[in-house]
């Protein structure tokens, strides 16, 4: 697509020290969720729920890849990658990552994220909501392994659980 207006680069996040000398780089979680869920609402009205989920997954993937490039590209082995990822997600208030199962060679993982940025504390809706996080995790794993991943949230606050659980499987060869 030629002449894109909104192509992402990390520099678009700007100089926060320069831009917010008084308020600093932090804001309330409600502000983040306000933006995300209003986006969902409007996009769903325009394109339908399924397309909305696909777009959020894709955006999450992009975010995951960019996050990896920015903070995790120096990690070598899987143990270091997990440790650094846990630290980064916690420091940035994204969530508390834990590994239930991991088989890097087979490309299968089961991860949980507690106090998740998107959904922790949300009311029960009867379906999983963290499609953006699914893509985010896929983007991280793809960046680390070089392969493609399909990530699915199987437990969520919105399904009545108290931690988000994701399965990840390598796809293709």
């Amino acid at each position, binding site marked *: 697509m030629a002449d894109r207006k909104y192509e992402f680069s990390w520099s678009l996040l700007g100089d926060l020290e320069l831009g917010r000398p008084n308020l600093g780089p932090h804001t309330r979680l409600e502000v983040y969720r306000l933006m995300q869920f209003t986006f969902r609402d409007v996009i769903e009205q325009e394109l339908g729920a399924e397309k909305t989920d696909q777009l959020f997954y894709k955006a999450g993937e992009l975010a995951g890849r960019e996050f990896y490039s920015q903070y995790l590209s120096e990690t070598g082995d899987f*143990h270091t990658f997990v*440790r650094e990822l846990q630290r980064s997600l*916690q420091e940035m208030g994204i969530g*508390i990552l*834990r*590994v*239930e*199962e*991991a088989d890097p060679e087979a490309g299968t993982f*089961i991860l*949980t994220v*507690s106090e998740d940025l998107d959904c922790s504390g949300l009311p*029960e809706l009867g379906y999983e909501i963290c499609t953006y996080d699914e893509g985010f995790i896929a983007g991280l794993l793809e960046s680390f392994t070089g392969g493609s991943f399909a990530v699915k949230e199987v*437990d969520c*606050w919105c*399904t*009545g*659980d*108290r*931690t988000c*659980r994701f399965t990840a499987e390598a796809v293709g060869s």
Partner: protein
Amino acid sequence: MSPEELQRATDELARLMLDAITLPKPPAIPADYDSVDSLQELYAVIQSLRQFLSAAANGDLSQPVGFRGYLAGTLKTLQANLRHISWQTKMVASGDFTQRAQFMGEFSQSFNAMVVQLDETLKELTRREHELREANEALGLLATSDPLTGLYNRRHFFELAQAEIERALRYSRPLSLVMFDIDFFKEVNDTYGHTAGDTVLEMVARVAQGALRTNDISARYGGEEFVVLLPETNATVAATAAEKLRSLIEKTGVQNGEHEIRVTVSFGVTDHLQRSSTALLEKRALQLIDQADEALYASKHAGRNRVTMFQPPEPERKDPNATASLD
């Protein structure tokens, strides 16, 4: 339904649920309630809960939680945390001592303390193993070396000499032994002191090490006496090497305060390994030593500061004291 019937039905249902929770084997729902979907669902939830908790209590974390809601979510969080701890434990077992449990209260504290202790213990064991290895190496060195000169000691020389003698005999290879002795060493000690004497011994050993080949075996045999075993070498070549060494030592001074101490060395050389003999290796080594010693004595007798080759006695030799010498 009358109030009494309602009371009775409610009581029956409540007791049924209590039994489902408390009894080892839960009772079946009476057929009267087959059409009550909410009751069937509640009963299924209790069954699922029983299965999950029973499995978890026996360490099986794979049992799914077959219902949803607050209670299910809490149980699944517990399950997820325990699975994560299991994974972390595997990582620790594989040597990753950076694992730390978080936000799990007392369990986190205990797990983390255990990992830290394991890490420290392993590091301490590694450090001790290293020290032990170094100590063993030093001990090995003490057992085989002369502490002053760093050359082999007499005992170890004999061990090595026997191996070389065996090899020379098996493959019919030449083998020479050189014995040398510092001339007038007692006077050096008497004049300059024993510390200066030690320095002279160190110098002689150092010059010898530098002049000889790496596979030559040199040792301090006695106070001021040294031996060198030269594999693959006949007496003529060994005598040439000895002469070179003699000259080097003669030219090397040892500074002692304002004085420079100079010494000379006398040599005896032999390669007369008695191949027809059936003597033990140790005895053969002693025979070589005796021969070299005899030649050394001849050097001393002829004026010192020289190399003499051992001459085996001839049956009809008229002068038993005649020996060849290199001046």
